[in-house]
């Protein structure tokens, strides 16, 4: 459905792809429930057309982008990335999208912009999970990146996977993919992108700052306080082949991104 050229070699991997059914059936998208199968069951209630993204804050040309503009004006490419969830499972997914940097440049970030803040759609009547009385997330879901992370060539805005438009449960119609960070940084169903001069508060960090840092780079040496990050289950995993593999520094993208964090203590800035 989506025309996309294969992206550069550096953005591919030979690892076995996680099948489409698993990628679109096993999701964390708490707006539609906390069980992994909830989003696939409930996300159809989200309206994704019309859709627009507000880009503002410290940019010279703030404005609003409609999904049609986005699809019409950026060159889509296919990139196969590893996705490592903070819960110690992982997938290999062929995304269709374009670099976030291409979009940000169009709005001309100001010289004082240091961070980018993202927000997910918040529409309680279409999102059953946000109506849960026992949930302690303060909606809308928020995420953030440092500007140089956001401008990094690996950082992708995805509109599809497996050559098709994104299923709602995977963050349709537009989501972030930051492959060297834990999955929750890759915010779904984005409606607002804001450039700011201070590190923005993000949802998981606000909820449990000891457990989820702002950076949340994949790092086998720094455990989550409640579980180890040294290994992961590469999905699909089965009883006969659990597929338990060692987690790699920066999820295997160390050569491309390590320089962003030179001189930083990654135990402190987890």
């Amino acid at each position, binding site marked *: 459905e989506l025309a996309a050229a294969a992206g550069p070699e550096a953005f591919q991997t030979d690892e076995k792809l996680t099948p489409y059914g698993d990628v679109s*059936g096993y999701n964390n998208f708490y707006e539609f429930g*906390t069980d992994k199968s909830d989003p696939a069951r409930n996300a159809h209630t989200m309206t994704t057309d019309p859709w627009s993204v507000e880009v503002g804050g410290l940019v010279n040309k703030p404005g609003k982008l409609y999904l049609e503009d986005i699809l019409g004006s950026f060159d889509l490419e296919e990139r196969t990335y590893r996705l490592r969830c903070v819960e110690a499972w992982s997938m290999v997914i062929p995304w269709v999208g374009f670099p976030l940097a291409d979009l940000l440049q169009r709005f001309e970030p100001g010289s004082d912009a240091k961070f980018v803040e993202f927000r997910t759609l918040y529409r309680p009547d279409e999102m059953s999970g946000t109506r*849960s009385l026992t*949930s302690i997330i303060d909606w809308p879901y928020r995420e953030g990146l440092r500007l140089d992370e956001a401008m990094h060539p690996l950082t992708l805005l995805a509109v599809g996977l497996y050559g098709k438009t994104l299923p709602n449960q995977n963050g349709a119609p537009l989501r972030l993919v930051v492959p060297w960070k834990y999955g929750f940084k890759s915010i779904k169903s984005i409606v607002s992108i804001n450039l700011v001069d201070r590190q923005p508060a993000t949802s998981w960090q606000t909820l449990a700052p000891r457990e989820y840092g702002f950076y949340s780079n994949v790092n086998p040496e720094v455990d989550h306080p409640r579980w180890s990050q040294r290994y992961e289950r590469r999905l699909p995993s089965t009883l006969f082949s659990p597929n338990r593999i060692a987690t790699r520094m920066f999820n295997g993208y160390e050569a491309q991104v390590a320089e962003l964090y030179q001189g930083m203590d990654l135990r402190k800035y987890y």
Partner: protein
Amino acid sequence: MRDKLIRLGIFLLCLVPFAVLLKGAVTGGLGPDPAKTIMLETGEWSLRLLALTLLVSPLRQWTGWSLVMRLRRMLGLYAFFYACVHLATFAHFYLGWSGSILLEELAERPYITVGFAAWSLLLPLALTSTRGWQRRLRRNWQRLHRLIYPAAVLACLHLLWQARSDIGEALVYIVIVAALLGWRLRTFWPGLAKA
């Protein structure tokens, strides 16, 4: 005869969740991450059966049924059985059967320490659950088997400690276990009952 049939029926009923999981695990019906499903299901069934075991005494007192007393051992053993499958799943999918990783996890992760402690408290209860041991230990048997109380509390804590953003489910179990233990406090201190 009727009692025997009821006990057989409940025995088979308690086996159903395990059979469903086993079938799913072998045929791939549990989805891409069976470890997660098996951990969740066996953990919850263990806790549910633990709560049912704790329900036996109050139920007998209210209803006078003596049959329920004879179900207590089976329910308790099933709670332990699901806890064992839970632990084995953890060893298989998460530890790769490595003893050194288990020790590390026990030392570093309180929710695992607490869960393991709950299982360890149930172990002697399962081992001494026979009539023979009951006779041999006499009054001490009853004292020993009060370990089910701290085991149930630890199991609830184990569940609560793992909630990421939604503690609703853990709260349901906590309320149920608190009620079952609270009822026992009333019988230990009759003064409470009058209040």
